[in-house]
């Protein structure tokens, strides 16, 4: 029992060590030539451009639900929903936009990435790369890392704008606040730095996804099961890490207000 727990603790520290090493190596390769520009563009297209529709679609619904729920409860408790536009937009920009985007990208990109890298690992493609003198981190991780960071950043900005627009539409047609009212309400609650912090969060979440996915991909055990496990583990771990990171970043940013 004690030894089992001991082994577990050791393996957690092992994992932390390996992930830190992966991050370090990625950083080094990120800033030293040769750069793999073509791969990066291909990944950016996959991660950012192809994820955009699903992100836009999902966050607009999240925004609509948020504002309708907020209004419903405000009316019930204080018989007035005048504060709803301001509060909702604050919630959207501070949390919703970045987190929902990151979780969507995790399930779409993170899962695919873990499966891709895992398959390469078990079919000896990564060994073949090594034999040809190619560093797997520079070749596989760096383009994906950069693409995901940029995608996280831009998709979060897009998501925020779409969310706000949808919230405005709902408040216009359902709650009876014009776009003007909404923007005035928003202005009293939301500051420019909220937008900046939200995008920084997006970029950080974006960084989590390729690191975690590649970590599980590289550790993938042989067999279809192995790939399945790598995929599941990477999605779960990425999602949990994103939520924890969200908490940490919110706490750090709170010092700037």
């Amino acid at each position, binding site marked *: 029992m004690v030894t089992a727990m001991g082994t577990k603790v050791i393996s957690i520290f092992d994992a932390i060590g390996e992930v830190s090493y992966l991050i370090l190596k990625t950083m080094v390769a990120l800033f030293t030539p040769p750069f793999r520009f073509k791969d990066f563009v291909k990944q950016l297209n996959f991660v950012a451009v192809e994820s955009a529709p699903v992100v836009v679609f999902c966050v607009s619904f999240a925004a609509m639900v948020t504002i309708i729920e907020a209004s419903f409860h405000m009316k019930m408790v204080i018989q007035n929903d005048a504060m709803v536009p301001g509060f909702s937009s604050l919630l959207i920009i501070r949390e919703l936009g970045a987190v929902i985007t990151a979780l969507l990208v995790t399930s779409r990109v993170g899962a695919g990435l873990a499966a891709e890298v895992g398959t*390469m690992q078990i079919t000896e*493609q990564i*060994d*073949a790369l*090594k*034999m040809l003198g190619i560093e797997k981190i520079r070749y596989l991780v760096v383009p994906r890392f950069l693409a995901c960071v940029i995608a996280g950043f831009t998709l979060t900005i897009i998501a925020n704008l779409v969310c706000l627009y949808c919230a405005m539409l709902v408040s216009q047609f359902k709650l009876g606040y014009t776009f003007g009212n909404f923007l005035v309400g928003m202005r009293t609650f939301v500051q420019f730095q909220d937008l900046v912090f939200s995008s920084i969060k997006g970029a950080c979440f974006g960084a989590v996804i390729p690191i975690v996915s590649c970590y599980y991909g590289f550790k993938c055990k042989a067999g279809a099961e192995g790939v399945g496990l790598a995929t599941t583990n990477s999605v779960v771990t990425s999602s949990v890490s994103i939520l924890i990171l969200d908490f940490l970043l919110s706490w750090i940013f709170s010092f700037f207000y």
Partner: protein
Amino acid sequence: MIVEFKNVVKSFGDRQILKGISFGIQEGEIVFILGTSGTGKSVTLKTLVGLLRADSGEVWIDGENVTHFKEKDYLPIRKKCGMVFQHPALFDSLSVYENVAFGLRKHYNLSEEEIHKRVTKCLDLVNIHNVEDKLPQEISYGMQKRVSLARTVAVDPKILLFDEPTTGLDPITTNAVNQLILNLSHTLKTTSLVVSHDMHCALDIADKIIVMDQGEIVARGTPEEMKSCEHPLVKDFLKEALDVH
């Protein structure tokens, strides 16, 4: 000795896979490693080129003790050693042509024309035609294995390591691959280490045969010596090889 293993031990967790393996290969020799599934043949090959690291013992390549080499130091060693993996291990985002050209682009400063010539020649060697632009997933397994062979041969390695190069190939292609190994060793003095199940091929083209069982070498010698070996596993292998004929 161009390649030498001295008492190499390798474990995964608490399972010891290689239990003290020692053997040597002379330059230009063709050596076959035979053994049943799971005895650690692939692990032996991977330990040789540093894809796996020995727990104890020494690995020597071309007069250098590479056992404790850093990843960076392995680069020139791996350039010398071409490895054909048990899986075709082709890069699935690249076409057949680009797969074979990959190592050339990486290691040599060749013009497109020279690359084209070399790639075509290597694909010719393994009898692959008209699929240069296809992705690996779009061609059959046997073809993938042959392309993988072409990719390895393309960079002109001094030492060739084959992990079951003919498993899953038809008899005609199997013969062609064996001839290829033989030719390379005659014309370019390439040293070959071939992992295989096929005693028949081994008797045909090997200079030396090593038989492994459960992570240990149980028999070794020239094909002639093997034919009179009394070890039961070797006898089983022989019986099968001779039955086929």
